[in-house]
């Protein structure tokens, strides 16, 4: 294992400390929990957005704490859900009287802990709701859509849900819009090299040198199948076909695009992928509202990428184009 770490057991703590040192104007840590929240909570009351999950996904989750995105993050161990107690403490700290919404990914550990936290917070009289992302089409057939896991589509849900909360909408409205974002988002990824778990020094999955895992999850979970690696255009076309037919997307639709690197794939290759994505969308007469190419939700040093498309109606379009300002995601208000 070649990693720049000190004590393998302190990887998450030390990384969080370095993050706070880099962005003291954006985030601060709660005292008795590994939770980061916005250093300045907005003065005008709004619905608070909380997320969380396992570590190892930078810029997710803590990179998205800021205006127009999420207000607080409970930080778990590498690839493992944060404890309910921390999510509860984040909820207590961030409730501004307008309620709290949990926007997180569909994983059994996260669900157990977020739901326990919700029960605890509700006992204190805080209104809490949740929207769970399930964008990875590789992880279950469409008939069983609620069993799908989340991958990079979560970032789009935070972007849209976060902007909706920032605009002053109430809890039920923020929930409705976030659910619309989930419903209209589809992703599919491919992995070529596993992440190495810092504490064990072992790979998260095993793949032959010339193979790729189609439908790989954000923790290295196996997906649809293992295959010999293909050229960028060929695998991109396969992924795009699967995504387009799943929603389905139709000609005349407006959509956002995210080509997300999983940690060890160069931007150069991500742009080669995006070249094909835009060509395919243009062929199907689907217009691109905004494109994000880069590392938005990684899996340690996993190599590979995912593509996420979100179908946008006028409401979702307004919120995806709204201003966002967090340590690792900044966007001007593009509605103007």
């Amino acid at each position, binding site marked *: 294992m070649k990693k720049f770490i000190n004590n393998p057991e302190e990887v998450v703590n030390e990384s969080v400390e370095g993050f706070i040192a880099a962005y003291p104007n954006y985030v601060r840590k709660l005292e008795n929990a590994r939770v980061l929240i916005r250093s300045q909570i907005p003065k005008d009351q709004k619905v608070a957005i909380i997320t969380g999950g396992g570590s190892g996904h930078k810029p997710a989750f803590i990179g998205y704490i800021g205006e127009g995105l999420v207000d607080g993050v409970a930080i778990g161990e590498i*690839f493992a859900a944060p404890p309910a*107690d921390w999510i509860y403490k984040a909820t207590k700290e961030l409730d501004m009287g307008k309620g709290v919404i949990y926007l997180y990914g569909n994983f059994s550990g996260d669900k157990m802990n977020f739901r326990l936290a919700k029960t605890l917070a509700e006992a204190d009289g805080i209104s809490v709701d949740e929207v769970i992302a399930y964008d990875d089409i590789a992880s*279950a057939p469409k008939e069983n859509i609620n069993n799908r896991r989340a991958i990079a589509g979560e970032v789009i849900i935070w972007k849209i849900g976060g902007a909706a909360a920032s605009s002053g909408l109430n809890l039920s409205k923020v929930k409705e819009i976030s659910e619309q974002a989930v419903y209209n988002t589809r992703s599919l990824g491919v992995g070529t090299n596993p992440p190495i778990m810092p504490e064990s020094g072992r790979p998260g999955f095993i793949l032959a040198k010339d193979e790729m895992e189609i439908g790989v999850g954000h923790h290295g979970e196996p997906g649809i199948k293992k295959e010999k690696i293909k050229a960028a255009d060929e695998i991109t076309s396969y992924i795009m076909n699967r995504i387009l037919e799943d929603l389905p997307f139709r000609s005349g639709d407006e959509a956002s695009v995210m080509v997300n690197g999983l940690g060890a794939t160069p931007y150069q290759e991500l742009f080669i992928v995006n070249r094909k994505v835009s060509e395919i969308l243009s062929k199907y007469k689907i217009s691109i509202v905004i494109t994000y190419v880069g590392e938005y939700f990684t899996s340690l040093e996993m190599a590979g990428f995912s593509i996420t498309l979100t179908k946008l109606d006028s409401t979702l379009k307004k919120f995806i184009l709204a201003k966002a300002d967090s340590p690792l995601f900044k966007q001007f208000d593009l509605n103007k």
Partner: protein
Amino acid sequence: MLIDSINFKEILIKIAEAIEVNIAYLTDLDAEIGDGDHGINMNKGFKKIKEQLVSFNVKDIGEMLIISGKVLLNEIGGAMGPLYGGGFIKAGKMLKGKIELDKFDIYTLFSSMVDSMNSIAPAKVGDKTLIDTLEPFIVEYKSLIYTNDLLSSFGGALAKAKEGMESTKDIISRVGRSSRLLERSKGHIDVGAASSYLILETIYKYLIRFKGDKD
């Protein structure tokens, strides 16, 4: 045979040590169809329990379970935090005030643990989870305790737990992270079933060693 506070503390410490020794085994099982973090997080949790128990002098076994459960629930997270943590707390509440456990208390401990797990994430035998180990254990143990002593009941039930764990190898998983793999999950033992078997086996080994002076 009775298990007193000192024995119980030693059992929890033995479990922590058994998990530490088996990190690689559990992690590799998890890497085949999960995400490879199970052994690491279980180890982190039980290591903290060990630290807590060594520094505290608690006689009440129920309290010991509650303290241990809170460590898992509040500091570990993952799926195992709520499952084992909630399970320990529920069992601790049921056994509150006890300074020694008889064979019926051991039944209460495991059955209330499984009740708690089922209330958090319902699963039944055949779903390829830790329930495939624990449920057959409890059923067999209950049928044995009325006519057998603690040790032989536990031993008989452990054999069923082992069969249950091994049966997960041929099951297509329906619950949890590996459930999305459908037929690809076949051929691998569920890591939760494996770690819960490891816990039961560790307890049994401890009981055998102490049989002599406890009968």
